[in-house]
């Protein structure tokens, strides 16, 4: 056990400041353990959002020494003895209080994301899919909605003006998931990502992939394939002609 110093941002939408806490840290603890100890012993009203404390729910996102992280998965032994640890709320979203931010942006974007479209004529129990085909979408369904990718993405991180047209990496993988779903009946997922979600604003810096605690290859497996196919379709004269003749969303799915 050792005594360590933590700087925790405290405040609300109107502003705030760092509070300094000297806290006992035991061997084998994570940042969230320390935050809980601060709550229990020094600041019972310290606001922090958390649930499972096992890296499965994606609630306890924050920035630790400037790095976007899940507090339950940030071990204290990552830091030098004697090093002050600074914990701040996610920067991209408005502060509610202390370490808690208003992440409703993400839920609003999800609400405008067209849902899974069940295939016509198939009754429940009649769905047949191969494991190898569902695995592509399953990778994206590992997402625990911690929104660290959304927080990190420089398109919106310091650019409030980009928030209306830009849904962000979390929703791009949702679009990719549905695009690759073997039985989704909509054929316009990529166009929808390009036209309605602002996929074009992404310039593939891979920051989202780097912070993903589930190690989802957001950029390589979702964003790039969608960009490529959108580009391919748009510049292919036959596809262009086809789109002029048939409405894309009424066309049968190619596979």
């Amino acid at each position: 056990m050792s005594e360590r110093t933590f700087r925790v941002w405290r405040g609300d939408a109107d502003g705030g400041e760092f509070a300094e806490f000297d806290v006992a840290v035991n061997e084998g603890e994570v940042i969230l353990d320390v935050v809980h100890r601060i709550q229990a012993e020094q600041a019972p009203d310290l606001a922090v959002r958390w649930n499972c404390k096992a890296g499965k729910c994606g609630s306890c996102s924050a920035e630790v020494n400037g790095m976007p992280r899940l507090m339950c998965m940030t071990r204290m032994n990552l830091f030098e003895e004697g090093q002050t640890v600074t914990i701040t709320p996610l920067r991209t979203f408005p502060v509610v209080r202390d370490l808690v931010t208003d992440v409703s942006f993400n839920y609003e974007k999800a609400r405008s994301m067209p849902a899974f479209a069940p295939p016509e004529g198939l009754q429940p129990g009649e769905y047949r899919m191969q494991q190898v085909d569902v695995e592509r979408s399953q990778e994206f369904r590992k997402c625990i909605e911690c929104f660290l990718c959304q927080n990190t993405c420089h398109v919106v991180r310091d650019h409030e003006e980009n928030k209306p047209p830009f849904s962000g990496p979390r929703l791009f993988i949702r679009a990719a998931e549905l695009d690759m779903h073997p039985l989704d009946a909509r054929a316009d997922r990529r166009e929808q990502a390009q036209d309605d979600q602002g996929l074009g604003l992404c310039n593939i810096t891979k920051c989202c992939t780097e912070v993903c605690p589930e190690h989802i290859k957001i950029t390589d497996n979702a964003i790039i394939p969608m960009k490529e196919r959108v580009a391919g379709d748009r510049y292919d004269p036959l596809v262009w002609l086809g789109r002029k003749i048939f409405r894309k969303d009424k066309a049968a799915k190619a596979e």
Partner: protein
Amino acid sequence: MSDNDINEVEHLSCDVLVIGAGGAGLRAAVEARLAGKSVIVISKSLFGKAHTVMAEGGAAAAMGNVNANDNWQVHFRDTMRGGKFLNNYRMAELHAQEAPDRIWELETYGALFDRTADGRISQRNFGGHEYPRLAHVGDRTGLELIRTLQQKLVSLQQDDEAAGESRDRLQVIDETTITELFTAGGAVKGAFGYRRGTGRFMAIAAPAIVLATGGIGRSFKVTSNSWEYTGDGHALALRAGAKLINMEFIQFHPTGMVWPPSVRGILVTESVRGDGGVLKNSDGERFMFGYIPEVFKAQYADNPDEADRWYTDPDHNRRPPELLPRDEVARAINAEVKAGRGTEHGGVYLDIASRRSAEYIRERLPSMHHQFKELADVDITAAPMEVGPTCHYIMGGIEVDADTTASAVAGLFAAGEVSGGMHGSNRLGGNSLSDLLVFGKRAGEYAAAHASAAESPKLSEAEIAAAVEDALRPFGNDGENPYALQDAMQQINGRLVGIIRRAGELEEALTELAALEERIANVTAIGGRAYNPGWHLALDLRNMYVCSVATAMAALERDESRGGHTREDAPGMDPQWRKVNLVASLEDGAVRLERKAVPAMTPELLGLFEQTELSKYMTPEEYQSSPTEEESR
């Protein structure tokens, strides 16, 4: 938001109010909205973060995709055996019959389960299930379930929008806690709570309410449950006049991590022992050989040499005693720790590192290895783990009608872990996810029907004012810090009402809990109302308290051992007790316990079992009245 806003109570109304946004609550909301009702879902956390995400194994449903011999009758039999025949048989029957449809319809919402070679939903083996039965997605089935239902709710909202319906036909109000139910004339009429973010109060008038709040695990020091599991629904139901059954039955998993603190309570899968891991005490002794009960001596090895040969030659050797049933292993660990042979942190060692190569461990237990490496920097290939029993699930809960999920209070329904009866004295792995789908759907359906026949209720200023006063009381108190009180309660439950119980210790627990009551009433919150976790915990404590008392009282009353209730001073099952449910209610603020008969199985269902099996659980009069297997077939 201005002070003016915060001090004004927000008034809402709907046909069906769903409290809880885990699997059961979301499934209920889908059904109630599909029935045309306006629905509000209250979520204590953010939308999609419910404890359901923690479920790993899968959802049990007799689809017969992997073994065509499976059917609902087999699933029903397994469920009743697992619950030691204390289950509400009708719930177990409906559950087994309807689970496949509930899983299949998730695919139409977009769920992507793992597949069989012929493209159907794959099913895996699990303890207590006769055939491979658990639909799964790797080891993250609960996440798939919650995300699928979350996305289904959003799609219903989009349908409403497309149809020109107003947004309030289906609302999810997140980070909101309900502190009170309003009743009149024996029926519910609404609820009261606060938005965690602002502290603003909310009163919701609703003729039908579904409780889907999950369990009580946070009352124990070592638990696999998240912070939300404070028994809110159990306590709200009690205070509204409903009843709880089977509160003594709590499932403890024998091997939860006890150290380091970052992973305390997290489960270590049974496969660690199946793949060669052994349990050792602080003297380095492999102690399980000393804990093989007489009835298991034929199947379990009494020496290390034979036990170790079993891994490669199971046909000619008896099994290692580390693989005894969960309650036996947990009892042994408990005894070692109490005898002073525990680890520094109150557990025992689970050692696979010294017995298998690092390569083998990484190959056989990849997710365990990865999880502990990432969360705790513990390398299970290099050092033993420190493990002990962890509180996992409560079988007990709100007494409901099997078909409708209705409680004793008109308009109040319950589904999922908060309800009681379905699992009897012990739940099988995999039966929880299917339970919340089957009964979540039924709760939504019957709550919608109830709302159709009911008048729109009115809430009075006086009852709202009283609820406001109750909720604000901790700010005016001059008592203790809520975290200290929670810790005290967890210590009592962990020490005296844990996995192994004795009459004397349970009496002690009740005395110590009673001494806490006054201190909890005087719990103090400091700071403001906006996102103040200390205040939130202060309000949760009374719920945890009343659940703890109900559990300790029922555990003291039931002097037998069955499923998730082990009395060291009353070992073994007593057929007379199998016929009895302990029913808790609240009378003048105090928990009262009464005995009530367990519903008797129909002759048709009794006929699914051999009489020799029934004779292990029942009195001769009960099973001899059943038709023979031939007659019923």
